[in-house]
């Protein structure tokens, strides 16, 4: 009978390195894919600055992001949307959200209030009263 030696027992141990490789690769994959998904809805804008901004990390209610480009064109979830269709779209989203919808307006600081006012009006018409403005911290 062949007895197991010390050397053969050591070879049978699990090699952790490939497993760590694969686990880290999976983590990086999910990180990058979620980052790309977020970039689809967040345009590169020069946001207004505010000293009294809040962090909303714990707010889990459904949210629609409207980007307002410097020229005043609104993008609803990254898609150019005419202002006259905003109320209907928001009403639909509001009906899908049981806990109430939040509309986040990411506007460039150079955009005029005339471009944002119809969005506020559309939110009011759709019954969305939770409207927030994205800002960067004023230092």
């Amino acid at each position, binding site marked *: 009978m062949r007895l197991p030696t010390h050397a053969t027992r050591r070879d049978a141990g699990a090699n952790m390195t490939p497993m760590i490789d694969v686990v880290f690769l999976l983590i990086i994959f999910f990180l990058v894919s979620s980052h790309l998904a977020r970039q689809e809805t967040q345009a590169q804008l020069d946001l207004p600055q505010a000293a009294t901004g*809040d962090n909303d990390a714990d707010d889990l209610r459904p949210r629609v992001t409207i980007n307002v480009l410097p020229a005043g064109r609104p993008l609803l979830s990254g898609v150019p949307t005419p202002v006259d269709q905003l109320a209907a779209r928001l009403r639909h989203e509001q009906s899908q959200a049981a806990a109430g919808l939040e509309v986040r307006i990411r506007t460039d600081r150079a955009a005029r209030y005339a471009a944002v006012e119809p969005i506020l*009006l559309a939110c009011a018409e759709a019954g969305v009263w939770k409207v927030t403005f994205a800002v960067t911290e004023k230092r």
Partner: protein
Amino acid sequence: MKTVFRNPGAGARLTLAMTPMIDVVFLLLIFFVCTASFQPLEQVLPSNLVVSGAGAVNAPVEPTPELDEVVLRGEPAPGGAAWWVNATPCPTPAALDTVLGSLAEIDATLPVIIDPAGGVPMGDVIAAYDACRRAGFLSVRFAAAAE
């Protein structure tokens, strides 16, 4: 005389395998690069809406306080928006801070309505909103005219 025998494979077995370590180190490097955000952290300013005009919008009605409201009107100006708090002109941000601060000391529960002209840049609108919150006002709203 005794002779020392050396196993020629013993030295090779003792050397560390560098390749898996480099693999893991590079993976850690990529992990930290991916998790680091190179964009400034965004915050939010919550707002309320006030709809004026003949639009058929059913806004939630809050009890009106006995004191008057504070209306902040803005007009576009070359060096930044010019603001009027009720009838008091505030040509500079410092003047706006002073007027809002003195009003908030009287009654911080007064509702503030921000009613800028269409040509005012949003950077100035948000700055005025920020000034209201800094002064301590609890209820700051935006006016939107229904056509």
